[in-house]
């Protein structure tokens, strides 16, 4: 019983070395910046992969469609952590160049691998999301565009994509929030992001509870900002006559 009471002690939030100590604060802010950087780059890349993949899935060539389908199925149904390990430990070990001092050096840093791996994972999910958005675009709209003399690329660029983006907005939001949460995996390959930095601080200062709470609140805060941005974007993109 005592352990339970001790565990529920109310002074968790009051002993914050992150705020008080300059060194720890600088480290924490660096970690926060790294997480934000990782999230933003991965979001942009995964959106790019999603748009490109959905465009290819609408292509005429069956080989292209099947290979994109295979990519999506594989990345959707395997654990992101194992994918990250596969990229970092398996491919990263082989991809080495000789550095200036004559020793083999990794070609891509752990930060680079985290970006590649997470972008591919989220990108595969985005392809699926955009594809269902593209499929929901009314056929008559595309036929109308064809009748007006648009080429296939122009139809995708000016008609299908803007409509599909708006249709798949809510599913996209969920996936991007998930992507930000998945950036914590970069901890496993020692990218100095928020979780990694927090783990360093709590193992040096032995303030696990405080750092844990700070960490949870930080992530909820980052996600809240992202949700707010997505909400604003959704509102700006909304077209009249659909939805509420």
């Amino acid at each position: 019983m005592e352990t339970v009471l001790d565990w529920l002690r109310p002074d968790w939030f009051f002993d914050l070395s992150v705020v008080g100590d300059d060194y720890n604060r600088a480290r924490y802010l660096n970690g926060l910046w790294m997480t934000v950087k990782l999230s933003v780059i991965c979001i942009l890349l995964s959106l790019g992969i999603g748009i490109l993949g959905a465009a290819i899935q609408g292509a005429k060539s069956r080989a292209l469609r099947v290979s994109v389908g295979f990519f999506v199925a594989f990345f959707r149904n395997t654990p992101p952590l194992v994918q990250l390990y596969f990229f970092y430990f398996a491919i990263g070990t082989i991809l080495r160049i000789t550095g200036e001092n004559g020793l083999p050096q990794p070609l891509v840093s752990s930060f680079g691998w985290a970006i590649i791996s997470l972008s591919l994972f989220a990108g595969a999910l985005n392809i699926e999301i955009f594809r269902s958005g593209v499929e929901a675009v009314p056929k008559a709209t595309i036929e109308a565009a064809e009748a007006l003399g648009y080429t296939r690329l122009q139809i995708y660029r000016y008609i299908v994509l803007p409509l599909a983006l708006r249709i798949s907005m809510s599913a996209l939001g969920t996936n991007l929030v998930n992507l930000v949460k998945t950036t914590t995996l970069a901890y496993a390959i020692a990218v100095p992001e928020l979780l990694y930095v927090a783990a360093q601080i709590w193992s040096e200062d032995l303030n696990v509870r405080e750092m844990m709470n700070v960490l949870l609140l930080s992530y909820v805060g980052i996600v809240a900002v992202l949700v707010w941005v997505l909400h604003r974007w959704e509102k700006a993109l909304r077209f009249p006559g659909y939805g509420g």
Partner: protein
Amino acid sequence: MKKAVTPEQIKGHLPVLLPTRKLMLSDIPLHDRLFNIWTAGALLIAFLASAIGPSFAQAGAGPARSIITILLDWTPSIAKAFGFNVLISIFAMAIGTVLGVGLGVLQVSPRAVIRRPAWLVTQFFRNSPWLVLLFYCILLIPFKITLFGVTIPFPGWIKAVIGLSLPVMAYMSEYMRGAINSIPTGQWESAQSLGFTRGQTMRDIILPQTIKRVLPPWMNLYAVLTMATPLVSIVGVSEVMSLTRAALSAEGRVDLLIPMYLYILCWFFIYCYPISTLTGRLERRYSVKL
């Protein structure tokens, strides 16, 4: 399926909506027939073989064992460790589902005192990273709790199960809220007019109807949870990922790295792909036709 309307069917009238026909194998487009789980499996094996193949050339040179022999040697241990992952996912899913359904019902309570905290708990656990919640549970739950003279031990893997069940609970709660809200209000009103209390309405009328709507996302959540189980290796609970890394350092061969990781990826793929295919099929069947 879009079928061409023949001139005989029209005969000068306006085209009419034809009655739906039972789906035949020949109706399925060729690329869907070509690209299914069997061909995906075959492609996967081919992919694996192409990754392993080049290393055969090197393996033939010395007395070293071939990659395939090594993989086969490790297969029983990997299967056992993977079984443990499945066990963790089943336990976490069971706990998370029970708690999540309860929380979801609380979220639609007419009393704001109950509804608001339930909403807050759901949002909090839904928006925090799985790994952070895992760390939270592993580091902050004591290894044993003595309650009223009874000592309950908490080994690492049980703490990991609790840590994984928290986000499951939150997602489940959101699905339940959505499903309950999607039941027409008429159901509530007619139950009320028949003299059902709110609890009876919920239990006997509303909840049974939500099962159909919650089933596809629930299955998808299970697949996501299974793919999250390797995370417990980061917090020091041994499972298939830690075994793989131990196996790799025991063998100490660079050419084994890619095949081994691909092999583990395949294990997860073979377990999760049928679930997600089935989920997609159920989703299409239950989806609201516009």
